[in-house]
């Protein structure tokens, strides 16, 4: 036990653990996505590689690894190569502060929430750089879209987060979870006595999370029917693979955050059994959210870019501002 609590050993274990968690999730969420798409369209999805298609991610990975990484002439070679890393690394770092259980957190930072959002915003820049460095018209258009979309959705998301900060009074993610102990009505999403619009806040956060991770119906960055593959057009092999994995890693981080902020993190819904079974509850809630993300993707068609921005500027931002003010007033009164 004392050996495991040594700081370097602990950090190494968490590093490996986080990398493995992200890698496994990225690989198998692709499969889950395709299986989910299959179910919704009433077909089985990939089922040839391994039992029920369980080896499909392995096959895909080998295929991507075996491909040559081309750097097309005329591209900015440095940025072109750096962009996939810059997409992947921040989402890995975000997981360092995510508490999976009461004691299962790599770094219990008191500004964890801030760290997640500051790293989260690097994702936008990396996508923009990737598109810019590609020297491809589709990639450039995609970059412009990514930036305007993420700027538009960062605002309501951060407004919601500020609301949550006012409610919780801390940026320590574990502390936020501790405050939601007890039965499930103590979860922030159901705390209507703090702010009657709390469920709406959660929905806003979720929509913004979809937009920030460039997921359907907001996947303007890689709108394959218009922009070939958007910012990833010129990428092949593992360069593309890393972008792809980063998308899922970002979804994992986003869903973790939604779970922590609104659904009580590793707290059990009945106020008991959240100690040992904490990580289980956490993963259960997180995967339920991820399932919803997949479900949404295969339900709705891609929005127009105008509607996307309209939704943010005309609906989400006023609404989140209103909840922010309302929460402030409620806190002052109570």
């Amino acid at each position, binding site marked *: 036990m004392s050996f495991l609590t040594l700081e370097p050993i602990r950090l190494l274990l968490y590093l490996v653990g986080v990398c493995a968690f992200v890698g496994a999730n990225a690989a198998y969420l692709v499969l889950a996505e395709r299986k*989910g798409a299959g179910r919704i369209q009433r*077909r089985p999805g990939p089922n040839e590689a391994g039992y029920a298609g369980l080896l499909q991610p392995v096959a895909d990975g080998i295929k991507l690894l075996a491909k040559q990484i081309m750097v097309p002439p005329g591209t900015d070679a440095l940025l072109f190569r750096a962009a996939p890393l810059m997409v992947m690394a921040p989402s890995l770092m975000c997981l360092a502060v995510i508490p999976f259980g009461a004691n299962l957190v790599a770094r219990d930072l008191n500004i964890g929430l801030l760290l997640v959002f500051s790293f989260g915003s690097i994702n936008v820049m990396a996508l923009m750089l990737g598109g810019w460095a590609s020297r491809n018209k589709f990639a450039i258009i995609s970059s412009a879209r990514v930036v305007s979309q993420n700027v538009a959705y960062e605002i309501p998301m951060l407004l919601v987060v500020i609301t949550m900060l006012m409610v919780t009074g801390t940026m320590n993610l574990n502390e936020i979870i501790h405050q939601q102990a007890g039965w499930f009505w103590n979860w922030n999403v159901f705390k209507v006595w703090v702010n009657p619009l709390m469920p709406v806040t959660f*929905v806003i956060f979720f929509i913004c999370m979809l937009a920030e991770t460039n997921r359907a119906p907001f996947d303007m960055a890689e709108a394959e029917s218009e922009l070939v593959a958007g910012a990833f057009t010129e990428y092949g092999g593992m360069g593309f693979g890393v972008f792809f994995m980063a998308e899922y890693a970002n979804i994992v981080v986003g869903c973790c955050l939604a779970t922590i902020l609104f659904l009580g993190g590793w707290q059990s819904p009945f106020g008991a059994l959240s100690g040992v079974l904490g990580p289980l509850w956490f993963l259960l809630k997180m995967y339920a959210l991820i399932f919803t993300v997949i479900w949404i993707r295969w*339900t*709705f068609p891609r929005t127009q870019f105008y509607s996307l921005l309209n939704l943010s500027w005309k609906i989400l931002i006023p609404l989140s501002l209103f909840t922010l003010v309302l929460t402030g007033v409620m806190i002052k009164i109570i």
Partner: protein
Amino acid sequence: MSLSTAIRDVAGGFKSLLVGMRITLGQAIKPSITVQYPHQTLKMPARFRGHVKLVLDPETGKSRCTACGLCVKACPSDCIELDGIKREGEKKKSVTEYELDFTKCSLCGSCVDVCPSDAIEYSKDYNVVSLNREDFSHMDLVKRLEAEAEIWRKHHPPQAAAVATTPVTAPAALATGAKTPSPGQKAP
């Protein structure tokens, strides 16, 4: 737009999204309807038109064709060639050679309609693919019937001896068709 209509719009729009999600979830829990093609196949519908084939008479295990040649005359694309002989002790002629040029056949079905003894029908064969043009320009239907008759004999052992004494084989016809391997199998 007043505030109340705006709120009603947003709420209505959100509700419509939930309706859509309920529909997809409803579909997701229904069973999958995919037929895993190479592993499973569908039974062809009764009216499926494959290339024509000679009918195996389930009672005799032989063709009903009397080599009357009406189908040859009825064919607008001129893709049937046949020959027959009169065997000892039989009233009618029996077919020895029936060659279909499937590259020209338009599956119009005139031959099937015109046949007085119901000796040809559409096969349910849809796996018609080959690297060899000859397989389709000279489809030997008698040889294909023989393959079917082989299976028929296995299921009718008492008659097997009787059939063996009067074989329907046509060695001369098979000589030309011998090089044509049966392209595609019947759906399992």
